[in-house]
């Protein structure tokens, strides 16, 4: 087992954080959960994360802004966008701005795990996730 992946999860839906923290913990991620983008940005300023998972539409700040800010600060951080407003132009915009991947809500924990595994691979590490999920 390699060093755990540092993951920041930002979504103003409380339940998303509550469920994904243990779900990602299981595949060897060290997850910090935020609902408030401001607090999340402050944390990002303090610490380099391997992966940032962020919602796009939030009241205080846009996920796109988070994407840009993280990219500026730490280009190697993989950013995964999740959103309920899954529209082609949003996905395109996110990818153009350098997001690693784009997941449309609703998704299963394994969907995110698979993307994170892919990101880990891109980062040069590997995590204990079978990309052929059992309960898919």
């Amino acid at each position, binding site marked *: 087992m390699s060093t755990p992946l540092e993951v920041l999860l930002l979504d103003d*839906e409380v*339940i*998303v954080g*509550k*469920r*994904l923290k*243990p*779900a990602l913990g299981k595949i060897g991620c060290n997850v910090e959960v935020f609902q408030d983008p401001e607090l999340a940005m402050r944390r990002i300023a303090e610490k380099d994360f391997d992966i940032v998972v962020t919602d796009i*539409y939030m*009241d205080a700040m*846009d996920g796109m802004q988070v994407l840009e800010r993280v990219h500026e600060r730490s280009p190697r951080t993989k950013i995964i966008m999740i959103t*309920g*407003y*899954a529209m082609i132009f949003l996905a395109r915009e996110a990818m153009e701005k350098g997001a690693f991947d784009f997941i*449309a*809500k*609703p*998704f*299963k*924990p*394994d969907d995110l795990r698979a993307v994170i595994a892919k990101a880990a691979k891109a980062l040069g590490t590997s995590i204990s996730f079978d990309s052929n999920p059992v*309960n898919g």
Partner: protein
Amino acid sequence: MQETPILEPEKEDTEGQTIQIVYDHMADIRCAQTTLLSRRHFSVRNQIYLSNVLVFLFALGMILVLTLNNNRVEKRLKFLEFVNDFSSEIQQARRYEKNYFLYGTNLNDAIENIHLAESIFITQSEEFSELLGGKKARQEIFTQMGAYKRLLEQLYQREQIDPKDFHSTPFSKTSELKLRGYGKDILTSAHSMITLEKRTLEKTLNRSRTIHLYSILGLLVFLAINAYLLVSRLYSTLNRFSAYAKRIASGDFRPIVPQRKFRDEFTELAVAINEMIKEIDLREAVLIQTHKMKAIGTLTAGVAHEINNPLNNIMLTVHMLLEDFGKLSQEEIIEMLKDVAAETDRSKKIIRNLLDFARESTSTMESLDLSVLLKNTVDLLENQIRFSGIQVDLQFIENFPKIHGDAQKLQQVFVNLFLNAMDASIKGSKIQVIGTLGDKDNSVKVSVIDYGQGIPQHLLSSIFDPFFTTKPKGKGTGLGLSVSQGIIAKHGGTLTANSEEGKGSCFTIIFPIINFPEIHAFSL
């Protein structure tokens, strides 16, 4: 959302049914039509005919009265002639009689004249009996004349018997005196008759003049009244109809209701206008429905996205529950199930708002708190608002008066105004809704203000025209503001726009508080 054609032929049937439900004006229009037609018929044409007949009868009466009077004048003139003849015969007789007493001549002539006078009197007096002051007066003249004649005849006879020195006989003397008396009496009677008759004739002529004058005046008054009645009838009705036309043009589609006790040519016009109103009303209902479908489309897209959030929460929770079921404590399981329950509830609410808006219901006017309606509208639009990153600020004065209105239709108006404002605004700006009392008594004012791109001055006058749109093809139908204005007009209110290019726009709706025309107008 793509542009929806206004009248898809295959849709027309269902559309028609919807309209029957949404708009219950049809029954009122039908009712107005029957009431209009059930009145007694009194056409303008009949009025003209009738007045002409009356004028003719009046003139006829006038002519009759004048003719009668003329006859009377004629008769009096004849009578005067007769009395004149009569008196001249008598005078002649008296002249001869005088001659006789002076020179002893002409007694025959006198007798002849008195006979003539008598015959004139007898033949003519029948005819003029009523003018001679009755039987008695006639009898008197007749008696005097008889006495005069008898005396003359006696004189004649006696002279025949004893012609010599007859003039100096006492009989001749007394006869002369008597004859003078009789002759004078007859002449006096005749003269007084002439004077009387002349006076009466003058009176009759005067009356004739008066009749002329009054009948002309009467005719003038009659014609004036007739013209006044006809003109005021036409004028007031035309005025009324031009007011109707203005009213209909302003979007008030209440049918024309009977204003008079009779029907005429204008009734046919009113019936035709009501038919037209029915058509316009139907078309408008179709437009409102079309526009609503479009709004529902926009909102549905928002809801479809918004629902993904609770759905995602449920999905994540349920999958984690499945995954870790054996390892979780009972408390954890209960907490997760509670989350699922709460999120399903949230989904239901999201959908219900839209369903409430989309539901087709009958048009019901009810007491409405606009501040609540606006709050609900903001909730309905929550997704769009969030999506556009615009802040909506509701400011209503305390104790905002309630109005009478159709909640669904008004919500459609506000949805439209909000969507427009959001389209015009940039991310991070603000939309303000301000509810205050209106400037006029018994009215309230709701303004929807955005700080977006504004509307160019030269377009401001056309924004309420149907099918006018500045949005790219396929994005706007150009129905929103036109339909909104129609709905507000049905509430007896006004919808106006103010805008400055580059600074923003302000749409102001003014509602009457007491006046709710739809209810009043239709309960005839």
